């Protein structure tokens, strides 16, 4: 059942997370974590906050980049900007 608020106000902050934009993708970024130097540029430049800093006890920085495929739209900025070529864009198989 539809239910509306007064004045089209939205009370659930950040609720776009219900909308998984991952299905927009035609290419997906795949990270070679062994090449990764943890510079964080992929995380910084992602327009969709789709690179997550996951805990990584093996890394000096304590984290590693992980792609959140729920939201990654496959723009390829991360792969383009990665200074060590650790991210490859791979054709999405569906």
């Amino acid at each position, binding site marked *: 059942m539809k239910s*509306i*608020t007064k004045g*089209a106000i*939205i009370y*659930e*902050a*950040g*609720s*776009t*997370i*219900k*909308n*998984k*934009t991952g299905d*927009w*993708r035609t290419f997906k970024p795949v990270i070679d974590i062994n090449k990764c130097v943890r510079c964080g540029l992929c995380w*910084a*430049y*992602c*327009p*969709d*906050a*789709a690179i997550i*800093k996951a805990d990584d006890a093996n890394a000096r920085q304590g984290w590693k980049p992980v792609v*959140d495929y*729920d*939201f990654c*739209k*496959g*723009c*390829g*900025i991360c*792969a*383009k*900007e990665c200074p060590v070529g650790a991210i490859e*864009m791979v054709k999405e198989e569906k």
Partner: protein
Amino acid sequence: MPENFEELELFAPGHRGCAGCGASQIVRWILKIAGPNTICVSATGCLEVFSTPYPETAWRVPWVHAAFENAAAVASGVEAAMKKMGKDVNIIAFAGDGGTFDIGFQALSGMVERGHNVLFVNYDNEAYMNTGIQRCSSTPYGAWTTTSPPGKLTIGKEQRKKPIAAIIAAHGAPYVATATIAFLEDLKRKVKKALSIKGPKFLHILQPCTTGWRFDPSLTVTISKLAVETGVFVLWEVEDGDFDNKFRITYKPKKRKPVIEYLKLQGRFRHIINKPEIIEAIQREVDEKCAKYGF
């Protein structure tokens, strides 16, 4: 020592911005610097449409939108309200170039003149992207848009870009700066500095638009960088509109790249790429501007 909110995602994913959207990058980073004690106002435009499709919102800070031309006026009202309540909170207005250079210009000028304590952020994608790429006073010389089509008699947009940041600075605004996402540390520092200053602040952020500029979505940052490396877009800041004493170039390319490197990646300039006289004219203009800035 101010708190660091860089790990917070106050602009949630799942928004409908295009793949590779530069506006999303800008908002995401400004909120990372501003933190949760922030209220945002948006003009009508791509950002408003793609971030608030009812009943979903990407915003994790209070946000309000009313119309296209009035982000600065709505922000003025919000700021007055916060003042009345005695609340110390960052107020940030976001508008595209239409909502800043053109239809939003009067309200912005008024807000700055009255001295409201608001940071106005212009994400400048150099045309009316939300309505489908029409020319704006922000559109650069020579660019194709749907209302500045290159034809038998024209080369694309015939006029030059309005120097918006200098115009706002000329109001005597306490802080005005230009930025791009490619120079992230520069952008972060400018946002921090802006928010530390009371009064009206203006950030002019160049925002390459994959859809409207016709480039591969992976190139958003690359093109942001090239705009600066070629001198097409100069990174600077000025306080109190004092260009004589309080103006600073914040990044000088060691060796400026030719403008063609910036232009050739963008479909909106495709029709002039093989017209050396037009490329030369653009190069000459950039050279003159950079000479004035001393590089």
